[in-house]
């Protein structure tokens, strides 16, 4: 991870991608943006388009149809970018592991940098995960 990425992470713009989740993780992600948790104090903003994003945030167990969409969106993110998987479904598909419609986990489709477990993870866990990611990226530059 180079200087370019470090610079971007002063204020990471996040694109939130739900690949067929139950929306619980999505609600927790939205909760991070509320004044109570106020993730904007770390400079994080939700981007409207994936082409403006530095971080791709994936929730949900990717199913056969959304797998293709995940791949396409990942190709559109300006590189270098980071991928954060949120929730048990995005990590290992949770209880959908034997589903005919969820053949592979998200990290076999696109490279994932941070895994935030939980069903759903609390906003504190999401913030902790992303702050750790930022510190990890910044560390070699110092």
């Amino acid at each position, binding site marked *: 991870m180079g200087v370019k990425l470090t610079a971007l992470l002063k204020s990471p713009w996040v694109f939130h991608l739900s690949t067929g989740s139950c929306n619980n993780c999505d609600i927790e992600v939205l909760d991070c943006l509320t004044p109570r948790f106020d993730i904007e104090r770390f400079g994080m903003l939700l981007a409207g388009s994936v082409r403006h994003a530095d971080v791709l945030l994936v929730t949900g167990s990717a199913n056969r*149809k959304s797998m293709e969409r995940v791949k396409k969106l990942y190709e559109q993110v300006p590189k270098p970018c980071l991928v954060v998987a949120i929730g048990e479904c995005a990590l290992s598909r949770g209880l959908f*592991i034997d589903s005919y419609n969820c*053949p592979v986990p998200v990290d076999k489709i696109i490279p994932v940098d941070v895994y935030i477990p939980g069903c759903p993870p609390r906003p504190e866990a999401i913030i902790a995960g992303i702050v750790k990611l930022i510190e990890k990226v910044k560390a070699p530059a110092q």
Partner: protein
Amino acid sequence: MKREDVLKGLKERFAGDILEFSEKSPKRLYIEIKAESIKKVALYLYKDLGCRFNIASGMDMRRHFEILYHFLLEDLNVQISLRVKLLKPSKMSSPAVGGGGSMDPPPTTGGNDLVLPEIDSLAPLFEAANWVERELHELLGLNFRGHPDLRKLLLPDDWPQGVYPLRQDYKEWDPNAIRDRGV
């Protein structure tokens, strides 16, 4: 129109079609009918009684397929469920039919569209039955006679022909699927 009159009228009108008539509760009514008379019973419920068609649900009961057509009679607040049993063709229970899969070793389920269990489609009567019949067709492998457009609804386009995921004898067909958590 009273509740008793409606029930009595139903019983009398379809005496030859009804196999079982059970009132689980004042609000819940299950009527098991012959598969071939689904169209006229549904038409009577929908057009003459003014029921609302909620949804149809299908299930693989090992010996037969069961479809429940749920109708809501709003005037009396009665939920009427028409139960239809479709026998499995004997060919489908033998595991060596296969041969329909386009991209992998032949799956054990079905494989030949000719042996699908059949029932009359309700989509020509009311549009609400259209999508749910497409869904039942692709997930359970039931054939709806007279359906205007029996394409796939939910499954991806590269799903192999003749594999029906909600059947009891569904087997994993995808060699690339990973079924462990990697820990």
